[in-house]
């Protein structure tokens, strides 16, 4: 083991200790990661495997709307879609969650009552995270209060990039406490962390600080989830699990629009970290348009013919 064995959630006396622990992580060679990802992208999923993978991907979706123009009506139709993605085919798996801003959590909660679909809320001054801690915690508190099962927080990338790792750690811990049992997804915003070494370090920092999930992106910056980042994060959760016994989930968010993209991530999981993560309790896609593409492919598998996009609701 490269990092000395620790308790499930190690405590660090100070930032120096935390930094030291992060420095013990082995580096990441971006070229090697890219090479590996490119090789796995050639995997060919056919027939029954493809059908199973499509259903798995559908069940992993956090159906998301995060716009300034969101309304209770929009949330209502999204929740309906999450519960029954394809009304013509009741065997279609429901989404894992609906993800909204905190002020719409109550609406989502109401529309999802009695279903398996969870309510997720972004919080902590999403997407920039640029607000005082007290405001971020109030944001989280409000979402939990309104019935959110899952909180998607953002880390302070500015603090991370300027080396104030202790501050990032403490914020996650504080938010975790404020979640009061709601699952915490920590958004690293990997597009702003830029390097894969940063992605790996931020993943471990978040896991040590109490993340139940680590999540790539807000979807609000130019670079979102990529397979290379996905692989590095998956390897981090695998190693963390081996070291601590805790299973942390991974959520890929932003820019995943096609079945082909989604299936590549499932292959990454299948062949790099172990099939344990092939389950919505440990892997999610934060997406909206992905669902319809999966539904189109699913229907094609079933009917043997390609179908037009309008067959499915535009939500």
């Amino acid at each position, binding site marked *: 083991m490269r990092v000395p064995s620790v308790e499930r959630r190690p405590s660090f006396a100070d930032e120096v200790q935390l930094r030291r622990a992060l420095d013990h992580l082995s580096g990441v*060679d*971006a*070229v*090697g990661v*890219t090479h590996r990802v490119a090789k796995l992208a050639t995997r060919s999923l056919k027939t029954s495997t493809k059908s199973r993978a499509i259903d798995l991907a559908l069940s992993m979706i956090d159906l998301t709307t995060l716009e300034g123009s969101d309304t209770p009506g929009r949330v209502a139709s999204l929740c309906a879609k999450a519960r029954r993605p394809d009304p013509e085919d009741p065997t279609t798996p429901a989404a894992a969650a609906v993800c909204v801003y905190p002020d719409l959590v109550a609406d989502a909660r109401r529309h999802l009552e009695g279903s398996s679909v969870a309510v997720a809320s972004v919080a902590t001054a999403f997407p920039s995270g640029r607000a005082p801690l007290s405001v971020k915690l109030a944001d989280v508190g409000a979402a939990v209060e309104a019935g959110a099962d899952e909180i998607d927080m953002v880390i302070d990338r500015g603090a991370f990039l300027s080396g104030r790792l202790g501050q990032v750690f403490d914020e996650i811990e504080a938010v975790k406490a404020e979640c009061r049992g709601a699952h915490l997804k920590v958004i690293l915003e990997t597009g702003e962390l*830029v*390097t*894969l*070494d940063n992605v790996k370090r931020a993943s471990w920092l978040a896991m040590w600080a109490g993340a139940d999930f680590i999540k790539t992106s807000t979807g609000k910056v130019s670079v979102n989830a990529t397979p290379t980042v996905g692989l590095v994060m998956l390897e981090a959760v695998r190693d963390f699990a081996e070291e601590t016994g805790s299973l942390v989930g991974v959520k890929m968010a932003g820019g995943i629009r096609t079945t082909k993209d989604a299936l590549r991530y499932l292959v990454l999981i299948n062949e790099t970290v172990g099939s344990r993560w092939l389950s919505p309790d440990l892997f999610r896609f934060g997406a909206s348009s992905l669902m319809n593409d999966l539904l189109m492919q699913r229907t094609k598998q079933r009917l043997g013919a390609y179908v037009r996009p309008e067959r499915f609701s535009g939500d």
Partner: protein
Amino acid sequence: MSERLDVMKTYKLLIKGQFLRSESGRTYEVSDAVGGFLANAARASRKDVREAVVAARGAQASWWESSAYLKGQILYRWAEMAESRRRDLADLVQRAWGIGEDEALEDVNAAIDRLVWYAGWTDKIAQVYGGANPVAGPYFNFSVPRPCGVVAAIAPSNGSLQGWVDVVAAPLCAGNTVVAVASHEHPLAAFALAELTATADVPPGVLNLLTGDLAELAETLARHEDVDGLDLTGAGEFATAMAEWSADSITRTYRPHPGDDPTRRLRSFIETTTVWHTMGY
């Protein structure tokens, strides 16, 4: 008044910077062009070959790792020392070949000029024969020529001093160390030039010189697994057999062809190593 009696010189082997008699204790007579006695030269044995190869191997890594600039300085220093002994060297050439003074000086001058030419090569080889390669991927890829290691060089049998410089200086300037066998008939000028390495800061073992009978040494040299390169310039009737023997350890060989570019010998004793390194973050 009687003529002054000459002080006669004993010619030895040069191994690891030391001037040694053959371990076998044997010598042979070297004659001038008309058969007169010139000197006794050491007649190297197979064990001397072994010692010389050990010396060359021992010196190779540090000779290669010394900067190309320093290797150039040392070879140039050797040329400087030769220049100051130009007439002595010419005298040996003249007596060996029975030629005129001017003709002998011509060979010596050519030899020294060639040495200077090689001195200038040391820090050009990597640039001329190496370089960066534009591979289709995120890698920095570069090729560097490296010495093949220990080169055994058979000097031209005619005793040409310039020919002698070619067979030893070409591998040396590329970072090889050398075990050279001088012309059996005309070893004295070659020995005198090799002697000067002692005052030119050529590290011990970098150049080793054997004199003797190639018939005795050829097989041992060619089959020695720790000899990486073989210059068969002066191997004459043994050239083909030596080339065959050396195949057992995939030894690089050089056999001159008429009209060879002088870099051909040099290129025969370098190998290209190509390094790939990922570029990314």
